C-alpha cells in the first residue's frame, strides 16, 4: 500500500470535495485554453488586415503615380456605389464599370477637349447600368438591409490598339479567355461575378439590352464599396448601339503631355464644361490620403480593441487562476483540518513529516490531473461560448468591408477561437492546472506535516 494508492483512495472517498476542486480547476483550465488562442487569432487577423491595407494603399499609390497626367472627366459626381446603398465609402480610382451614368455628353466634346493646349490623348467611355435590377440583402453588424442594384453595368471602351497598349483602359486580371482587342464587336469581357450570376463561361452567350454577345474572357473585378459590381466590357460602338446612346460618352480620360500641364487643362475643362466633374492626380492623392487616414484610424481602433481584449483576457485568466488557487487552498486546508486526527495517528505510528506532506500533495496533484482532463473536455466543447461570455465581442470595423485577399474583418473572437484551439495551449493549460493543484496543496500539506502528533490526536 503505497502513498499513491492511499492518495487515490482518499480522492475517491471524498467525492464532493474532489468534484468541487475538479469543477473549479476544470473551468479555470477551460478559460486558459479558450481565451489566449482567441487573442492570438485576432492579433494575427489584425496583422493580416494591416498588411492588406498597406499593400492596397501602396498599390493605389503606384497607380496614382502612374496616372500623374490623367484627368478624369465624369458626367456623374459619385461612382462605385449602386443606387439605394448608403454612401460614404472611400473614393479612389473609379473601377471599370461605374454603376451610375445617367448623364451623357456628345462625342464632339472629345475633339474640343483634344484641342486644348497640353492635351496629349483623350479616351471616351460609355457607362450604363442595366434596366433590370436585383434585390439583395446585405448583412452588417448594424443589421441587415435590402438594396436594389442593376444586374450588370456596361462599360464601353474605345478599342483602339494605341489606347489599349498605352493606357490602362481595360481590366488586367483576366482569369480565363482573352481580353478585348481592337476591332472586337459582338463580344464582351465579363467580370467573374457576372458570369457566376448568369451561369455562363467563356464562349457563352449573354444578353445585353436584348442583344446577344459572346463572352471572350472573364476578369476578376477589383472592388471598392460594399459590392463588387457586375461588369460587362465591350467596344464603345456596341455599347452606344445597345443602350441607344449613339455618339454619346459618359466619361472621358484626358491625358496631358506632362504633369505640369494637368492643372491648366483641368481648369479649362471645368470652366468650359460645367456638367463634367474633373478629377486630377492631386484629387486622387487627396482621396488616397483621406483613405489612409480613415484606415489608420480603423486599424488603431482595431488594435486598441485587441489591446483592451488582451487586458480583459489577462484579468480574466488572473482572476480564474487566483480563484482556483484559493479554492484548492481552502479545500485542502479544510481537508487537513478534517483529517487532523488521521495526521496525528500517522505521525504516532511512525510517519515522517515528508511522508505526511507527500500524501497530501499527491492528493492535490491527482485531483488536478482529473481536473486537467475535465478542463480539456470543457474547453474543447465550450471555448466559443466561454470566450463570448468572458470577452468583449470584437467588431473591428463597424461595417464589413471586403478587400482583396484580406481576412473577413468582421470575424469575431468566438469565430476565431473555434479554429484556434491547439494541443500546445492545452498542454500548457494542463501543466498550469496541475501546478495550481500542487501549489494550492503545498501550504496545507506543509501544515499537515508540521502538525504536532500529540495535539492532532486530541483533535475531535
Amino acid at each position, binding site marked *: *500500500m*503505497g*502513498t499513491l494508492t*492511499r492518495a487515490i*483512495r*482518499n480522492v475517491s*472517498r471524498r467525492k464532493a470535495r474532489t468534484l468541487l476542486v475538479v469543477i473549479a480547476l476544470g473551468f479555470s483550465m477551460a478559460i486558459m485554453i479558450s481565451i489566449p488562442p482567441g487573442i492570438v487569432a485576432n492579433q494575427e487577423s489584425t496583422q493580416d488586415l494591416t498588411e492588406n491595407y498597406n499593400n492596397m494603399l501602396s498599390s493605389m499609390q503606384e497607380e496614382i503615380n502612374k496616372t500623374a497626367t490623367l484627368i478624369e472627366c465624369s458626367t456623374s459626381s459619385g461612382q462605385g456605389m449602386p443606387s439605394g446603398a448608403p454612401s460614404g465609402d472611400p473614393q479612389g480610382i473609379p473601377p471599370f464599370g461605374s454603376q451610375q451614368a445617367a448623364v451623357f455628353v456628345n462625342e464632339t466634346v472629345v475633339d474640343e477637349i483634344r484641342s486644348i493646349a497640353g492635351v496629349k490623348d483623350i479616351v471616351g467611355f460609355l457607362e450604363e447600368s442595366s434596366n433590370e435590377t436585383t434585390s439583395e440583402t446585405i448583412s452588417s453588424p448594424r443589421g441587415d438591409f435590402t438594396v436594389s442594384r442593376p444586374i450588370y453595368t456596361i462599360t464601353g471602351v474605345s478599342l483602339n490598339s494605341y489606347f489599349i497598349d498605352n493606357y490602362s483602359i481595360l481590366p488586367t486580371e483576366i482569369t480565363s479567355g482573352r481580353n478585348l482587342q481592337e476591332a472586337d464587336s459582338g463580344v464582351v469581357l465579363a467580370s467573374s461575378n457576372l458570369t457566376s450570376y448568369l451561369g455562363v463561361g467563356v464562349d457563352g452567350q449573354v444578353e445585353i439590352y436584348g442583344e446577344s454577345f459572346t463572352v471572350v474572357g472573364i476578369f476578376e473585378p477589383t472592388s471598392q464599396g460594399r459590392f463588387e459590381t457586375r461588369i460587362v466590357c465591350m467596344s464603345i460602338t456596341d455599347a452606344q448601339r445597345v443602350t441607344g446612346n449613339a455618339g454619346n460618352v459618359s466619361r472621358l480620360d484626358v491625358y496631358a503631355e506632362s504633369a505640369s500641364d494637368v492643372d491648366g487643362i483641368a481648369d479649362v475643362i471645368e470652366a468650359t464644361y460645367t456638367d463634367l466633374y474633373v478629377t486630377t492626380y492631386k484629387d486622387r492623392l487627396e482621396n488616397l490620403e483621406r483613405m489612409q487616414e480613415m484606415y489608420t484610424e480603423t486599424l488603431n481602433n482595431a488594435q486598441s480593441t485587441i489591446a483592451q481584449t488582451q487586458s480583459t483576457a489577462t484579468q480574466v485568466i488572473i482572476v480564474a487562476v487566483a480563484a482556483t488557487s484559493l479554492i484548492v487552498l481552502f479545500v485542502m486546508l479544510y481537508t487537513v483540518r478534517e483529517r487532523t*486526527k*488521521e495526521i*496525528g*495517528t*500517522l*505521525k*504516532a*505510528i*511512525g*510517519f*515522517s*513529516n515528508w*511522508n505526511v506532506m507527500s500524501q497530501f500533495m499527491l492528493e492535490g496533484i491527482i485531483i488536478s490531473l482529473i481536473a486537467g482532463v475535465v478542463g480539456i473536455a470543457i474547453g474543447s466543447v465550450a471555448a466559443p461560448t466561454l470566450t463570448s461570455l468572458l470577452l468583449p465581442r470584437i467588431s473591428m470595423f463597424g461595417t464589413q468591408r471586403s478587400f482583396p485577399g484580406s481576412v473577413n474583418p468582421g470575424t469575431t473572437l468566438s469565430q476565431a477561437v473555434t479554429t484556434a484551439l491547439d494541443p500546445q495551449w492545452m498542454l500548457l493549460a494542463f501543466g498550469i492546472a496541475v501546478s495550481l493543484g500542487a501549489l494550492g496543496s503545498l501550504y496545507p500539506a506543509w501544515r499537515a506535516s508540521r502538525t*504536532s*502528533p*500529540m495535539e492532532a*490526536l486530541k483533535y475531535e
Partner: protein
Amino acid sequence: MSELLLKTEELGKAFKMGGRTIRALSEVNLQIRKGDFISIMGPSGSGKTTLLNMLGCLDKPTKGKVVLDGKDITKVSEKNLYKIRRHKVGFVFQTFNLMPYLNAIENVELPMEGTKKSRDEKKQRARELLKLVGLSEREDHRPHRLSAGEQQRVAIARALANNPSIVLADEPTGNLDVKTKYEVIRLLGKLNTDQGTTIIMVTHDSQIAAHAGRMLFLSDGRLLAKEKQGTHLAKDALKCPNCGRETQPEDAFCPRCGKKL
C-alpha cells in the same frame, strides 16, 4: 531480572495557561524492564496520557529525561523522532484510529511504510500479526465492517508491525463493552506472556489495570509511591497513609480524611 528497557529521570512537564504555570508531570522516576506489563492508573487530569506521550516521543518534557534502549530520546530532534516512533514504539489508542479507507491488512502494513521491507514482506508480516490477534479471516474488511473489539485487535496488530521495543496503550478498552474489553486485555496479556512484548497501558478501569503485572498510580502529575502487583490488586486494598482508611486506586483524595493520596 530482565534488562532495563526504559527509564525516566526526574521527568517533568509544565505549560503556561492564562499566565499560570500548570505542572502536568513532576519528578517522575520510572523504570520499565523488558517484558513488563505495566498499567498506569489515576484520575482524570493526573497526567497519565501526558506521561504516555513523553514515553512515546509524541511530546517533549520540560524537565528530566527519558531513556529508551539506552538512548536519551528527549535529546533527539523533532525531525528524527519519527524513527523512534516507527521502530521502537507501538501505539494503541482508545478510539482505535484506524484509517477508514484501508482494510485490516493495509492498516497493519501502514507503519511499515518507509521501512526497508519489501511489499511481500510487509504483507507477510501483516498477515502473521492478524493471525496473532485472531483476525486472519477479516484481513480484507475495512474498519466499518469490523466490530469495536475487532478494530482494536487490528490496532494492536498495527502497533506490533515494526516489532517495537514497547507498546503504549492509551485506554485501550475505554471504548469497548464489558465482554470485548476482557478479550482485548487478555490479548495484551497473551502478547506479553507469549511474545515477551513490553506493554505500558493507561487506564481508568481498575479491573482492567489489574491484569497488568505492575500497577502504577499517578496523582496530580506525580507517581505515587504505592505500587501494586496487578494480579493481587483485588485482595490488597490501598490504604490512606494518613488515616489508614481503605481507598480505591482511582481515588485522588482519601474519602475519610480528604488527604491527597
